[in-house]
């Protein structure tokens, strides 16, 4: 077996499927530069008209929250139910709220 050969770097791909929608994570791919990454993303993820805009980001540049912090980061929102419209009982006669 040949000695360790460097792999092409990993990129994460985000696609906006149609105008008005957000970019959504579609998956990942390997490429050596940004132009190649965009072309690969286009060839891999938009063959069926699923894209108007592509973002590619080198995987190592992504900063992500740590799952072990999930409790501290996300739980405190759980008891603040008054942030949701469904918490509020509005009389039926008031139609526009």
């Amino acid at each position: 077996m040949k000695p360790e050969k460097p792999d092409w770097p990993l990129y994460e791909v985000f696609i906006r499927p149609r105008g008005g929608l957000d970019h959504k994570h579609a998956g990942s791919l390997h490429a050596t530069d940004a132009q190649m990454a965009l072309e690969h993303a286009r060839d891999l993820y938009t063959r069926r008209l699923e894209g108007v805009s592509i973002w590619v980001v080198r995987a190592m540049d992504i900063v992500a929250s740590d799952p072990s912090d999930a409790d501290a980061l996300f739980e405190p929102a759980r008891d603040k139910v008054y942030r949701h419209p469904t918490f509020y009982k509005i009389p039926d006669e008031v139609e526009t709220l």
Partner: protein
Amino acid sequence: MSKQRYVLRLADTSLILAQRLGEWIGHAPALEEDLGLANTALDLLGQARLLLTYAGELEGLGRDADALAFLRSEAEFCNLQLAEQPNGDFGNTLVRQFLIDAFQLELYEGLLQSGDARLAEIAAQVLRETRYHFRYSSGWVIRLGDGTDESHARVQAALDRLWPFTREFFDADEIDTQMCTAGVAPDLSTVQRGWSARVGAALSEATLERPQDTPFAWYGKRGQHSEHLGHLLAELQYMQRAYPGASW
């Protein structure tokens, strides 16, 4: 009849080039390039079908795109000779692609103004695809030209080998001249200027040396083909020749 032959030239170049790229699928240097080459092949095949259909109509003998693709013999094909050259390695394939993509880009930009509405319409679609093809192929020529010593040597050799075939692009014959006069096709010297600039810029970025022009005067567009076309057609046409009249 000149227009029919002119359209056939465009069609055959796309068809033969698509056939060559089809040979790569499943064997490319990376899976991503299998997809990239397949993408170009599919686009070229689509162009070929549109143009062959039009050529068949102009001919008026009831031949459709399949009949023209599968039942003509070598001398009746009018693709550019460059298109039928064997794939060789990935560098050779991409250099061949780059030279033709640059040509199609300039040519079809000119055809947008064609006096023939059908051709102008086809040109609009081809242009959208060819812009992407050129981006892809020139990107690779640059990466390989300005990559490692090995990749540089390989693509320089490919460029030297394939350059003579580009003469055919711009050497206007009676059909080219007639079509230009009739307002159907652009002037080839204009196309050449555009091509030369595009190719020159990419080669320079690729640190590749532009080869000298040579007087290679065997033109596929006049039905003068290399030995390669026969083998290519034997594969392309096999099923329809072996099962005449069958529907697939």
